[in-house]
C-alpha cells in the first residue's frame, strides 16, 4: 500500500516537504485576474492583454521544472514573467505603426515615461483590491476622502489608514520590480 502525505494530512510537515510544484490551472484561478489586470491597464488593449496572459502562462508552464517554490511564490514568479511579456508587447506595438479604424484603435496612453507608468501599474496590480481601489480613488481619480467615504460607506479615518498602508505596499512592490537586464 502506498501512503501519500498531503498538506493538511497527518504526517505532512511543511518543514520536511518541498512546496507544491507549479499547478497551471490553480495558478490561473488564483493569479489570473491580477495578471490580466496588470496587462489590461498597462496596455489598454484587452485582446493584446489576454494574449500576454496566455503567453505568460505558456512560458511558466514550459519552465515549470525550473520553478522552485522555496525561492519565491508562484505569484512573484508569474508577475516577473508577465512583466517581460507585457514590456515586449508594448515595445513591439510601439515599433509597428498600424492603420486601423478609429473605433478599433487602442486608447492612447499618455505619460512622459511609459515604462515608469507600466511599473506603477504593475505595483498597483499586486495590491489587494480594497487597497488598490482606495489608492486609485484618492490619488488617480482625485476624489476626496469624504467623497470616497460617501461612495463606499467606509469611515474617512479607515480610508486614510488604508491608503497609507496601500502606498507602503506599493512602494515595496516597486522596489521589487524586475531589474533583470
Amino acid at each position, binding site marked *: 500500500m502506498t501512503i501519500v502525505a498531503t498538506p493538511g494530512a497527518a504526517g505532512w510537515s511543511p518543514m520536511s516537504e518541498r512546496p507544491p510544484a507549479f499547478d497551471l490551472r490553480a495558478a490561473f484561478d488564483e493569479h489570473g485576474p491580477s495578471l490580466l489586470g496588470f496587462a489590461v491597464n498597462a496596455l489598454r488593449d484587452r485582446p493584446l492583454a489576454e494574449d500576454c496572459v496566455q503567453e505568460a502562462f505558456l512560458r511558466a508552464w*514550459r519552465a515549470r521544472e525550473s520553478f522552485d517554490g522555496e525561492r519565491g511564490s508562484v505569484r512573484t514568479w508569474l508577475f516577473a514573467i508577465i512583466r517581460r511579456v507585457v514590456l515586449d*508587447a508594448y515595445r513591439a506595438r510601439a515599433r509597428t505603426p498600424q492603420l486601423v479604424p478609429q473605433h478599433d484603435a487602442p486608447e492612447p496612453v499618455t505619460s512622459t515615461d511609459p515604462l515608469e507608468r507600466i511599473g506603477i501599474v504593475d505595483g498597483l496590480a499586486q495590491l489587494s483590491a480594497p487597497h488598490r481601489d482606495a489608492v486609485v480613488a484618492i490619488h488617480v481619480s482625485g476624489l476626496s476622502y469624504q467623497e470616497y467615504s460617501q461612495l463606499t460607506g467606509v469611515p474617512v479615518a479607515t480610508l486614510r489608514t488604508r491608503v497609507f498602508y496601500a502606498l507602503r505596499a506599493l512602494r515595496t512592490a516597486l522596489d521589487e520590480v524586475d531589474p533583470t537586464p
Partner: protein
Amino acid sequence: MNDLEPDRRAELIAAALSGELTPEEGAELDALRVADPSVDAEFAELSALVGGLPAVERWDDVAPSAALAARIAAIDADDADAPAPAAAPGLAAVPEPAPAPDDRADAQLPSAAPVTPIRSSRRGLRPLLLLVGAAACVAVGLGGGALLTAPRGAVEGPPGTLGAIEEVDFAGAPASVDIDGALVAHTWGTETVLTVEGLARGAAFTVVVVGEDGAEYESGTFLGSAVPIDCRLNAAVLREDVAAVAIRSLEGGQIAVAEVPSV
C-alpha cells in the same frame, strides 16, 4: 518618541499626502514630526510615489473571460499531446526556458527575446522616482539651519562648480516667511537646499526647478511647520540648464522664486 497609535500616524500622513489636513490635524502632525523625524522621511517618499500615480489615469477592473480560461487550460492539454504549445496569437513564439542560476525569483524566469529592464539593477523603480521627486526634510527648531550651514567639504567655486554651495536669493515671499536657499551642482542634477520658516504648518509645498528653456522639473514636496525646517531636494536637470527655482503651494500659487545666474 511619539505616543500616537500607529494608525493615527498613518492617518495623518495619508491626509497630508492628499492635502486634506484640518488645522487641528496639521498641529497634531507638526508635533508628531518634531517627535519622530521618520515622519518627514516617509512623507517625502510617499509623496514622490503619489506624484507618479496620476500617470495611470484610471484603473479598469477586469476578470478573465471564459475564452481566456479555456486557452490557459489548453496549455497543459496541448502539452500532453505535443511538447511545444503554440505561442499566443499576438506574440512571438516562445524559446526554450533557461535554467535558474541563482536564488532570486527573477532568475527562474523562462528566457525570451532580449528585453530592456524597467530599471537598472539594484534600484528598481521607486528610487528613480525619488531621484527626481524626493525631499529630505527635517524640522530643526529654534536655531535651525544646521544642515544648510553644515560644511559639505572644501569645494568652492563660481556657480555651477560641482559640489560647491551656491547661495541664491528667494524673492516674493510673504513678510512672515523666511527662506534661505542654495543650489549644489551635481553630475546627476541640481540639489536645492532650503531652510524655511513661517509657512503655514501642515500645508504642503512643492519645489520646482525651472530650466532655461522654460521646462519645469519637480524637486519634491514638504510640509510647512511651526519651526524652521531644512530640506534637500533634487531635480534631474543640470545646473547649467537651470534658470530659476520656485516654491509653490500644491495648488500652484507662487510662494517665492529665486532667479539664478547662467553658468
